């Protein structure tokens, strides 16, 4: 379970997250929507400790992320992350991209790492691209590669930061399908997304962020059908 309590985050004087309270349960899919600059990406970065926080607490399975005593590299193995820009490692083949972290972070043997990498690449539909370098993959394939790479750490949670926003429209579908597949398999996911249909159809809950606040959170039917906040209503009208 991910527990966020009274989280405040500043970039210098800029108060980017202004007191976020949010729990995400095991097996749950939470989508975060909201206009650009509202702090959605920053929240994900805070959850896996890529950004420090100034106030409040984030716990992952009872472990405080920002505590100096926490082994953050170990904790990050629980938290897979997929970024807006597909960050394939260009000097490694697809297989090496996925096998590297299991080998050097989880200390698996070469064979074990290779086995799990093959399994996850097949999982995301790249079983025929094992020895291909990222430069020969499309954006959608590279984003699926990034998903496989995160999954190879066998994380308990997956964080998606606008995984489809940088893709050409015709490539969005294959990545969303992969995310949908993970959701069906019971993965706990937090998905920052602009894909309203994904948020509506796949999530258990949807959170709307507005200027550093979590304005509203609830089941998709409520957020999309009967939004309580005028900000939410305005935002939804603008994206329809």
């Amino acid at each position: 379970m991910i527990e966020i309590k009274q989280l405040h985050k500043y970039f210098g004087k800029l108060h980017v997250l202004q007191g976020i309270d949010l729990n995400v349960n095991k097996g749950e899919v939470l989508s975060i929507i909201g206009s650009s600059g509202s702090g959605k990406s920053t929240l994900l970065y805070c959850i896996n400790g890529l950004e420090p926080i100034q106030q409040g607490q984030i716990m992952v399975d009872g472990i405080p992320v920002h505590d100096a005593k926490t082994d953050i590299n170990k904790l990050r193995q629980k938290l897979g992350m997929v970024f807006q820009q597909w960050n394939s490692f260009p000097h490694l083949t697809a297989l090496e991209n996925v096998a590297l972290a299991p080998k050097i972070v989880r200390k698996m043997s070469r064979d074990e790492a290779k086995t799990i990498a093959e399994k996850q690449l097949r999982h995301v539909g790249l079983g025929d691209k094992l020895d291909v370098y990222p430069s020969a993959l499309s954006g959608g394939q590279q984003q699926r590669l990034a998903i496989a790479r995160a999954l190879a750490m066998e994380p308990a949670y997956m964080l998606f930061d606008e995984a489809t926003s940088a893709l050409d429209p015709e490539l969005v579908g294959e990545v969303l399908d992969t995310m949908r597949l993970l959701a069906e398999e019971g993965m706990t996911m937090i998905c920052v997304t602009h894909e309203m249909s994904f948020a509506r159809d796949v999530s258990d809950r949807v959170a709307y962020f507005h200027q550093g606040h979590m304005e509203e959170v609830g089941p998709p039917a409520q957020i999309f059908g009967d939004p309580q906040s005028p900000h939410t209503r305005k935002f939804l009208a603008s994206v329809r």
Partner: protein
Amino acid sequence: MDYNFHWRPVFRQLPDLFEAGLLTLEVAILSMILGIMLGLILALLRMNGPRPLRWIANFWVELARNTPALFQLFFFGFGLGAFGLHLTPYLIVLLGLSFNNAGYLAENFRGGFLAVPDTQIRAARSLGMTASQTYIRIIIPQVLRIVYHPMTNQMVWAVLMSSLGMLVGFRELSGETQFFASKTYRIFEYFAVTAVIYYVIVKIILIGSKLAARRLFKY
């Protein structure tokens, strides 16, 4: 023209010259290995080092790039000698070249580091890699590819620069040539043959580099 060419004495010394050529190659290669390691450290210090170390790194790069290479050799020879530290000619040349290589390469490496997007670091760290794993496995391999051609040029430069070694008493290819030339007075012949040997060494490096690149960089 009243100069008579005498090539035979030169050809008789060819084995010695080849051996000296190998010494030149050896000192150039070692100075590149040291230069690459030091250059990487200098580049990282200049970008993220604590202040005094950053200043030292900047100073090093400035000196290496903006003073004659010969003076840099002299520093490790006569300069340190004045303080009672007498290095062998081999070490003077090795350290002098490494100092110079590191300075030039540091600047190339910095450009290389800036060319690798930050998002690569975030992605690696999000997988649980430590900062040093991220640098060693993800960032530096990409930087080495970006600076591969400047690095090859620096290697060529190191071979040619090592000829300055004859001025600090080092019997590498030029020193050895000078030694025989002054013994036999066949100065032109010796230096002409040696120039050809330098040329061949440089060509071998350039071709080797091209072949190695094909194997190393499949992406």
